[in-house]
């Protein structure tokens, strides 16, 4: 990569270092289908059931998810899309203007590593489907390490295929994902409807009573209340909305109202799909095997492959594999690009294979998928505060008397104010969570606000006249 090239060969291929021209702006319809498809991913098969293992009640699940998703949509509309249509730059270029290239590289490293773990969880999900013909033992909810040779072989095989395809570029997979999206949503719905029949639901009251007033969490899980569900669902995509990743998307929008289209992703993927997957697990835990495990004080496994196969047959298995594959693939590719920013001499294919190898190793350990609620909370918590830097710089720089886009104007590669604000916010609030036992998603917003405020304070103290 030549020195003049962008530090981040980002996820978009045009206008990486210039505002998107008006001729390329797109109407809201361009974003609607994209968001509906992007958020019906392999991980939805895990997240729905994991809510049930956390003992949620019907009200917590139905109303909590509705509210959490609404708050996420509002963040996309009034923060991400609003700033994106003002500046029309990628996240990375906007960050570079504020933080300098070197600090963006550090952000990218964090992003790349987290992407690998996320892709690993998606490989785990696919493995639960691919392993069925081999009579593979499914990982238990409390498993952290591989449970046998078959598991290792299946995961390595899936990881290798995904990595090789990703290394060849993901255009084909992206096109395949476009084809799969509408069908995948309908398979999620089919799983939910079939599960309702299995659960003998004949009225809304029957449906409500599946979850009722909630229950004790399964062994090894924590209890989720209404506010846990709200905050978790609000911030599971925090990196994209308050973390400003989707600046890169909405810079193409004709106006900020296109931000409302994220509701399609939230209410199809993060409401309908989660509830359908939750119903599948509710059906499974009524089986004799699951009841026996619960009676023995063990948590029944969350294995999307067997659950969907039991409900809707081979089509369900295909859905689990496709959902995992189509989302793991671009994730590995983007992780590779993130690593390439740090080692620009390595080819894209090679860094993608390295990212794929890391993801495959992560996929061997079921903990990433089985503790997905915790991992996703960490993912949002780490990346979201960087978005606060952009928001506070955009709206409050003049009021605070600091220079906007300071790194660009001062010609520096490393803005210390940003690093201090990010690290101090993360360290303080993560410590509160780790040592005070506070649910991490409750602290994402305080960490975000703190990061933005500290950025203003440090910038005021450290900025030099430009």
């Amino acid at each position, binding site marked *: 990569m030549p020195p003049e090239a962008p530090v981040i060969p980002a*996820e978009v291929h045009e206008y990486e270092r210039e505002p998107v021209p008006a001729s390329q702006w797109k109407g809201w319809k361009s974003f609607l289908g994209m968001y509906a498809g992007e958020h019906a991913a392999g991980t939805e098969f895990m997240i729905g059931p994991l809510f049930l293992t956390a003992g949620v009640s019907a009200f917590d699940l139905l109303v909590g998810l509705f509210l959490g998703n609404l708050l996420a949509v509002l963040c996309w509309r009034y923060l991400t899309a609003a700033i994106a249509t003002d500046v029309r730059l990628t996240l990375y270029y906007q960050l570079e203007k504020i933080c300098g290239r070197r600090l963006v590289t550090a952000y990218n490293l964090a992003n790349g590593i987290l992407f690998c773990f996320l892709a690993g969880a998606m490989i785990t999900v696919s493995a639960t489907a691919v392993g069925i013909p081999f009579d593979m033992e499914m990982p238990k909810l409390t498993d952290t390490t591989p449970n046998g040779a078959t598991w290792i072989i299946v995961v390595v095989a899936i990881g290798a295929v995904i990595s090789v395809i990703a290394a060849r570029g993901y255009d084909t997979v992206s096109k395949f994902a476009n084809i799969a999206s509408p069908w995948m949503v309908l398979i999620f719905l089919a799983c939910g409807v079939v599960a309702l029949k299995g659960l003998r639901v004949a009225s809304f009251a029957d449906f409500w009573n599946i979850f009722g007033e909630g229950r004790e969490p399964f062994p090894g899980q924590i209890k989720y209340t209404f506010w846990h569900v709200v905050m978790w669902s609000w911030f599971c995509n925090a990196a*994209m909305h308050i973390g400003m990743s989707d600046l*890169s998307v909405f810079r193409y929008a004709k106006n900020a109202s296109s931000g409302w289209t994220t509701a399609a992703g939230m209410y199809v993927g993060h409401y309908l799909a989660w509830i359908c997957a939750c119903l599948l697990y509710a059906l499974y835990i009524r089986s004799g095997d699951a009841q026996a495990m619960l009676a023995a004080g063990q948590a029944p496994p969350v294995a999307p492959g067997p659950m969907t196969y039991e409900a*809707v047959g081979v089509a369900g298995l295909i859905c689990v594999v496709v959902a995992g594959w189509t989302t793991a693939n671009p994730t590995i590719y983007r992780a590779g690009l993130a690593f390439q920013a740090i080692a620009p001499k390595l080819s894209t294919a090679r860094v993608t294979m390295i990212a794929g190898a890391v993801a495959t190793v992560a996929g061997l350990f079921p903990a990433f998928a089985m503790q997905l609620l915790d991992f*996703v909370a960490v993912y949002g918590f780490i990346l979201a505060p960087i978005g606060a830097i952009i928001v506070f710089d955009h709206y409050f720089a003049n009021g605070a008397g600091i220079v906007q886009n300071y790194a660009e104007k001062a010609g520096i590669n490393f803005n210390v104010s940003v690093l201090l604000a990010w690290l101090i916010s993360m360290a303080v609030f993560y410590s509160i969570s780790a040592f005070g036992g506070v649910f991490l998603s409750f602290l994402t917003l305080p960490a975000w606000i703190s990061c933005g405020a500290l950025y203003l304070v440090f910038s005021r103290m450290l900025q030099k006249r430009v």
Partner: protein
Amino acid sequence: MSIVKIISYLCLLVVLLAPILFFADVLTDSQMRIALLGGTVVWFATASTWINKGDNDSEIETESAI
């Protein structure tokens, strides 16, 4: 609208209706599974011929979503 496109949409309709008809006891479990698999196979076979043609939205891609 071409015949292939109509067949694709009909397949989606099959995938939508099969579980509903199973819920209503119109289809048996095995009939529902066959309908879902058939709809799936024909959807992928037909949709692949038209769904990525002529759209220019592929240049907008999100980060890896959860």
